[in-house]
Each structure stands twice: as structure tokens, then as C-alpha cells.
């Protein structure tokens, strides 16, 4: 086990290094941060002075090694816009994104499992057909449209949910600002999590349905029926566990990708999370913040993949963590 974790740690560091090199390499193509920092009347000579001060005129490799030197001490540079360490800015916004992803994941899990299982057990039932048709729509509609549509329906027309923001927050130990402990915060979570889950929900429903259909063809299912076991037990004990195993693997990785999908959702709902910050940083050419975001997200990916592998190893009795039996 320790060997496994150690290997993953090394992987994580390599991933971070690669990401940082790539972000640095493309930094020139992103634009001029000075334009956002100074007004239009400021002369070019003034801007040059600022550029020199910020170290933007040094050769790229020099800037990179300066960055690397500070990075190993935990300093990923100072955000041009927020005037704070970039890592701090990202980490402050992390709880908002993580809570959003958590709620979306819950919605996905709670809906896709029953829906997928139902569609597999009764594929010709009108409800099953409806679910499959709607899920096709879900895959095709861009998340931006889903978000705006939900806002207009539930916020403007019906007035059931707030239209933007996180609402009332409670600060927990360690500075984590959570919206999960207040009714207002939970109300604000509803529409954004539904929007975010809509990206993955169709995938999961179809995945579970497909896996379950295949599992239901296997010999051990027929044998279980031959033993006279109730249909319920056959579906939910014999079939479901086998169905969910590959779903954990595929799904776990997809949940990691959800963190990247939050960019669009957070922008529409003015949700103060990492994705929103990232988009603003791109528009403002706030390079330190961009790099910090990319590195944090890559770390999240590595952690998620590691956790998924560990969970899979624990849940599937035929597999040992360091290799497949």
C-alpha cells in the first residue's frame, strides 16, 4: 500500500511539472496583462516601467526557473489582479467548487443508479424509453443553455430558486466557507448542481444500463435464478455489484473531469469558485493565477484517480491494488 501511494506521489509531481512547463510556454500567446492593470491614457513608457518591475521582460526560461524556485517553497507567484499569493486565491475558492462538485456527484449517483437499473430491467417500458430519449437531449444541449434555461424557468418565472451566487455561508474550522449548513446556501446550490450534473448524468445512466444489460446475460445470473432467489435479490445483489464495478472506474475519472466543467457553470451562476476565477484570469491575462489553477486542478485529478483506484481495489475482491490477479 505505501509503495502504491508513493508511486502515485511521484506521478503527481511529474504531472505538476509538465503542466507548469506547458503553461509557461504558452504564456506569451495569452496577451498583455498590463492592459488590464492600467488605463488607456497611460503612456507606453509607463507601461514599460511596470513591465520591467514585474519581471515580464526577462527571458522565459529565467522566469520559469524563478517560478520553480519559489514553487518548491509553496509560493506559486502573486496574482496580478488580486495582489495576493495565487495559491491562496485558488485555495480560498476551492471549497465553493468542491461543494458544487459534491452536490452534482450526489445528484448523479442518486438518479443514475435507479434510472440505469430500471432501463436495464425493463428496456421496453415507456418510462425507460423516455429516460433514454431525454438523456440523448442532455448530451446534446450545451451546459450554458441548460444553465440559462434553468435560471429563467425556476428563478425568473417560478421564483423557486435564487438566480446567482452562493447565498449565506458559514465558516468552518480552517477557513472553509460552506453553503451546506444554511437553508439559503442549500437553496443556492440547487440550480448550479443540477446544471453541472446534467453534463454527466446521461453518460452514467447509459453506462449503468449498458453494464447491467451485459451482466444480466451472464451465467451467474442464470445460476442465481436457478437457485430460486427472488428477482429483487438477483438484480440488486448479484447484478448491481458487478454492474457498478466498471462504473466506479469510469465514473471516478469522470467526476474528476467535473472539476474542469465547473468553469462554465460557475460563470453563468456567478459562483465564486475556482473555475470562475480561471476564466477571469484568462481574460485578464493574470498568468500566475492561471498557472496556479492548472497545477491545483492537476493535483485534484491525480488525487481523484488514486482514490478511485484504491476504492476499486477495496470493493472488487478479485483485484489486488498493485496489480490485477
Amino acid at each position: 500500500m505505501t509503495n502504491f501511494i508513493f508511486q502515485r506521489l511521484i506521478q503527481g509531481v511529474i504531472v505538476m511539472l509538465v503542466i507548469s512547463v506547458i503553461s509557461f510556454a504558452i504564456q506569451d500567446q495569452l496577451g498583455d496583462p498590463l492592459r488590464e492593470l492600467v488605463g488607456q491614457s497611460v503612456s507606453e513608457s509607463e507601461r514599460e516601467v511596470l513591465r520591467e518591475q514585474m519581471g515580464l521582460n526577462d527571458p522565459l526560461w529565467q522566469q520559469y526557473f524563478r517560478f520553480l524556485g519559489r514553487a518548491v517553497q509553496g509560493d506559486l507567484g502573486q496574482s496580478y489582479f488580486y495582489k495576493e499569493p495565487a495559491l491562496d486565491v485558488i485555495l480560498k475558492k476551492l471549497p465553493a467548487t468542491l461543494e458544487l462538485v459534491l452536490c452534482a456527484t450526489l445528484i448523479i449517483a442518486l438518479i443514475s443508479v435507479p434510472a440505469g437499473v430500471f432501463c436495464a430491467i425493463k428496456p421496453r417500458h415507456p418510462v425507460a424509453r423516455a429516460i433514454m430519449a431525454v438523456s440523448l437531449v442532455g448530451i446534446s444541449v450545451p451546459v450554458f443553455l441548460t444553465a440559462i434555461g434553468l435560471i429563467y424557468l425556476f428563478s425568473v418565472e417560478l421564483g423557486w430558486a435564487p438566480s446567482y451566487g452562493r447565498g449565506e455561508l458559514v465558516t468552518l474550522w480552517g477557513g472553509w466557507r460552506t453553503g451546506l449548513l444554511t437553508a439559503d446556501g442549500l437553496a443556492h446550490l440547487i440550480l448550479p448542481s443540477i446544471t453541472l450534473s446534467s453534463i454527466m448524468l446521461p453518460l452514467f445512466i447509459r453506462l449503468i444500463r449498458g453494464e447491467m444489460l451485459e451482466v444480466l446475460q451472464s451465467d451467474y445470473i442464470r445460476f442465481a435464478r436457478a437457485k430460486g432467489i427472488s428477482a429483487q435479490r438477483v438484480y440488486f445483489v448479484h447484478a448491481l455489484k458487478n454492474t457498478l464495478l466498471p462504473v466506479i472506474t469510469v465514473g471516478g475519472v469522470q467526476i474528476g473531469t467535473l472539476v474542469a466543467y465547473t468553469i462554465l457553470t460557475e460563470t453563468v451562476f456567478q459562483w465564486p469558485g475556482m473555475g470562475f476565477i480561471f476564466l477571469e484570469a484568462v481574460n485578464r491575462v493574470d498568468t500566475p493565477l492561471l498557472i496556479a489553477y492548472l497545477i491545483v486542478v492537476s493535483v485534484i485529478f491525480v488525487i481523484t484517480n488514486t482514490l478511485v483506484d484504491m476504492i476499486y481495489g477495496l470493493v472488487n475482491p478479485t483485484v489486488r491494488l498493485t496489480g490485477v490477479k
Partner: protein
Amino acid sequence: MALLEVRDLVVEFGLREGASMALDGISFALEPGERLGIVGESGAGKSVAAFSILNLLSAPGYIASGQIIFDGVDLASLSESALRTVRGRRIGMIFQDPMMTLNPVLSIGEQMLECLRAHSNCSESEARHICIERLRQVQIPSPEQRLRQYPHELSGGMRQRVIIAIALLLDPQLIIADEPTTALDVTIQAEIMQLLRELCDNEGVALLLITHDLGVVAQLTHRTMVLYAGRVVEQAETAALIRAPRHPYTRGLLDALPERTEPGRPLNQIPGSMPGLQSMPSGCAFHPRCNLARARCQSESPALQHGVACWEAAC
């Protein structure tokens, strides 16, 4: 009264092009404690016959007509919930591939105990006791530990023993075994066959053994039935069938055995191959491959008379 009597069982497959018959009205009977073998090539309909008894056919197969009378009750007319009381309790099944038959993510104990839980009211500890006893009976060492283990931790032979143990858990009257030794090593095959034979003798359990291996039926069964293209072509006491087969197909099967061929000479294959469901010949299904075929064989399908379905049986 026969324990199991199958009358004119017709099983069809509902394909897009139209229904095709997998079993064309087969009939047979099985006495309590008797061991009956069903032999034939792949595609002859042996497994279909086995699965249809407990209605475990997978779509698009279905029972079109006929009766399956078990202990006085027609199983083919029972509802799913009624059938469930028969499955596992009064009729046990053994499948072909022990690795695929056991659920890889559930422990052996789970898969045994759930059977008892479904059919009896005994307590957990009683149930465990029964399971351990059965495991001992099928000669599995350290049965208590086995309950905790998972299928992939046992060898093929041990898994098949577990499956046999499961089949016997509730003292069934009949066991249907679909190619129980085909997927096993030759050495293990003999052990399993021996085990089956002993258990059936000791417990007085009837056995319906489906196999393509004539050697297996020779050792295990009292009577044997030969299926060809969904029809019964010959039925007789096993010893008599092997010593003096009457149907050309049975003769061909026996002649094809390696034991019947001189070393260095090619095997005696029956020319051609069994027709598929869609391309059934008219009259006797075997006539295109039969060297005794005459005009009548082409137009009329022979009925089973005195244990053989052939116009030339007298020859």
C-alpha cells in the same frame, strides 16, 4: 409415477425472420432416483431442453407448447413466483463452467446461504452448519474457511464441487446437470463424475445429465437419449445403446470415437454437419447425412417407436 415427464415439448426462438424451432416436440420420462443422459452435438438442443424445464431460457427462446410434469404439476404452466419454489429446492441445477457460474464478487458463503434463506426458515447458524456439512460431503477440505473465500480463490474442480453442494443444499428430488465436466481437466472430470454418482446413489436424487461426451454417459447414466436437430432420435438403456445402437446417427457417433479407430487411420466422421435452425431439411432431419437414406426419409419425419426414430431401424 414418473418423477419428471416431458410431453411434446416445443421450444421456439423468436427471431426477426420468424420463429424457428429449437426443440421439435420431444418427450421423455424420468423415474425417481433414475439417471438419464441426454447426448448430442452442439446445437442439438440439449441445453435448451435442460433450461426449459425450469423456464430459464434466455430471450428470444420460449416454450411454445408441451407439458413438463414434475411430481404431478405442469411446470410450464406455473407462474414465476410458483416456479421459484421449485427452483433450487426441489430441482437443483449444475452449469457447465464453474468460473462463470459463481458470482465473482460474492463470497462462497453468501452464495450458499442465500439459497437456504430463500427456501427455508432455519436460523443463520443452522444454515451455516448445513452449508459446512454439504461442503464436507463434496469432499472440500476446511469447509469453514471456504465460506469466507471468493470463487477466484478456488480451483476449477473445487468450484464445481461447491456448485454441486449448492445443488444439494435443500435435498432436491432432481438435479439437472448441463455439461458438468466439460470445462474441467480430465483428471478432475473423473473425480467429479464419481462424486455425482455417489451422491445421487446415496441421496436417491434423480439426475438429468446433459453432455456431448459418450464416455461420461457410459459411466454415469441408467438410460440415454440422443438428440439430433431438436428431435429425439434414439432412447435406450445406456449399456444397450452403446453396445448396439440402432439409429444411424448414434452408430455414427460411436464409430467416430477415437477408441473405435485403428491407430494411424483417420477418424470416422459423419459427413456434413447438423443443420441450423433455419435450414431444417424436410422429412427426417438426418437424411442428408445418412448412408441408409431412402425416398421416404426425405418426405416423412419418423416418429419415435420402441425407442428409435428411423424408417430403417429394422436394418
